[in-house]
């Protein structure tokens, strides 16, 4: 068990600056997820922690030791790869025992550890099989088992579930969470799937273009995104954005655009007032929109035309046109709407997000 500290970490590949000044402190027993689109530097960061990629500048500490110059074998970590990386010429038992053999554990200890891990993962009946005889899910379990038997200080996961089908992915996600709760080993998990990030992580690190955008607990990212990128990346369906003009009129602050005229609630009007006269980005999550009823006031609702209806069962997603903007509203499954219907959508004024028109940082 150990904490991992990353200080001013940078990586440059032949002129490409892949990771820029990443700072991160991962506490003992914490499960941290790095998430972001392809090429955001999350995997490179993980590989630098693992020692598979050299560090251009900055420091990585595991426990309280700077590991920059240590080879992977001396860092006391275990890694699970996207393509499982099982040794194809060894059976499941030998795959799991390899790391222990390399470290000179005695035979009895190796057997008991492998058996225990196989028991946890439910693969004790496959110990004599070769990897090619296993299903995708079983292979992933073996890869997990190979990490578990070592009792390392840190688990590193590099998109371990990406090769599995959707149903199995959800199942294995739960399993990884259970294993973490049971073993309490510090874990760093890389994924491009924000649902995985939200469900697994104690804290989530959102990255883009090699830069950390925000670090926080899942709900913190969801409720208080630091910028427009995080707001759009976290949450499904994604947040709706519209460029609006802030205008001070009639003693209140208004967010205006074609088809939209919303009164900014008093609570946040204070810090938005200095943007009066400027264009800012308004963000509304689909779940914060609903079909307006008689009680809704005109300054917290707008007209929309239904374009597409997606019935998910528990809710209905309405793709609507609001002025020139397209938005998605997640409404009650009881709503009866048809394509081309005109309806009025009300929003939850306490859950509006505003982002600076230039820097895109949250206001």
């Amino acid at each position, binding site marked *: 068990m150990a904490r991992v500290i990353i200080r001013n970490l940078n990586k440059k590949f032949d002129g490409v600056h892949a990771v820029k000044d990443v700072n991160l402190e991962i506490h003992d027993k914490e499960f941290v997820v790095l998430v972001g689109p392809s090429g955001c530097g999350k995997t490179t960061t993980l590989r630098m922690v*693992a*020692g*598979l990629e050299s560090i251009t500048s900055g420091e990585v500490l595991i426990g309280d030791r700077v590991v920059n110059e240590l*080879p*992977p*074998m001396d*860092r006391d*970590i*275990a*890694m699970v*790869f*996207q*393509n*499982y*990386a*099982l*040794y*194809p*010429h060894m059976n499941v038992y030998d795959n799991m025992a*390899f*790391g222990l053999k*390399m*470290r000179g554990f005695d035979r009895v200890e190796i057997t008991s550890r492998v058996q225990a891990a196989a028991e946890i993962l439910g693969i004790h009946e496959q110990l004599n099989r070769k*990897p*090619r005889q296993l299903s995708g899910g079983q*292979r992933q379990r073996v890869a997990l088992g*190979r990490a578990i038997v*070592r009792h390392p200080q840190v688990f590193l996961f590099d998109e371990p579930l990406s090769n599995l089908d959707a149903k199995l992915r959800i199942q294995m996600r739960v399993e990884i969470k259970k294993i973490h709760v049971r073993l309490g080993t510090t874990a760093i998990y890389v994924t491009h799937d924000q649902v995985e990030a939200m469900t697994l992580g104690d804290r989530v690190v959102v990255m883009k273009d090699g830069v950390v955008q925000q670090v926080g607990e899942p709900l913190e990212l969801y409720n208080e995104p630091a910028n427009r990128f995080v707001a759009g990346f976290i949450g499904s369906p994604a947040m709706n954005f519209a460029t609006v003009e802030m205008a001070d009129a009639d003693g209140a602050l208004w967010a205006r655009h074609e088809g939209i005229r919303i009164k900014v609630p008093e609570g946040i009007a204070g810090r938005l007032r200095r943007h009066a006269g400027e264009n800012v980005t308004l963000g509304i999550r689909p779940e914060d929109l609903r079909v307006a009823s008689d009680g809704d006031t005109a300054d917290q609702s707008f007209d929309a035309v239904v374009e597409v209806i997606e019935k998910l069962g528990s809710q209905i997603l309405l793709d609507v046109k609001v002025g020139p903007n397209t938005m998605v509203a997640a409404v009650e499954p009881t709503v009866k709407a048809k394509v081309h219907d005109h309806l009025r959508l009300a929003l939850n004024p306490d859950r509006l997000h505003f982002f600076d028109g230039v820097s895109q940082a949250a206001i």
Partner: protein
Amino acid sequence: MIEGARWRRWIFFNLPLTLFVIGLLFPFYWMVVTTVRPDAELYRPWMAPNYTPFWTLHPTLDHIRYLLDETLFSRWMLNTFFISVLATAISLFCGLLAGYALSRLKFPFAGSLGTGIFITYLVPQTLLFIPLADVIRNFRLGDTPWALILTYPTFLIPFCTWLLMGYFKAIPRELEECARIDGATRWQAMVYIVFPVAVPGILSAGIFAFTLSWNEFIYALVFLSSPEQKTVSVGITSELVRGDVFYWGSLMAGALLGSVPVALIYSFFVEYYVAGITGSVKG
């Protein structure tokens, strides 16, 4: 498989395949028939009433007996075997390390080094033997097996290196990375993980190298002169063709026996060999 009517399969698949196989195997059949044909039949003119070119009614082992008793054939076999095994071992060893380094390690000029090795393979042996003859003479290796053991790698190492390099590149990098995280050094990861996974590739490189050395002719012809040092390919053609007299029966017997080891090796390892050429590693 070809879809469609039965006649279509016969015309486009079975018939050409049969012709192809017959065409390929006929020289071997000719070799066998000539080996067991008595001299009287061998030198019978084609207009003779009992001329039977494709079979013989009086098979004999005389030619084989002559080959084994009256010539140094068994010595040549031994020479060839010794030379081929050692040349293959040297080339495979160098090829493994070079192929691994070129496919996995980052070092300056790795790319140009790989190309350089490939270019040496492209220099034809028929040119290279001239300078090599000088080298062999300077080291006083002429007329010894070492003349061949040390010169065969000049074309075997580039060949093995390139074949293995391609094979190593097809092995997922993660396997090795995982082994190194698991506690193996780079060397251990190579020996315990990469090499075992690459066995089909290593075997096919070895078989190829062995076959090339076994069949090699020009270096053996130039660098060896005394009959007891010769290899099979040179021994047969130089000792069984005297002046303009061809000892056809023994020549063919020598060719037949000389190709047996290679044929055996191929048939044993054919599955590995095919996997090595098509190069697939499944995780």
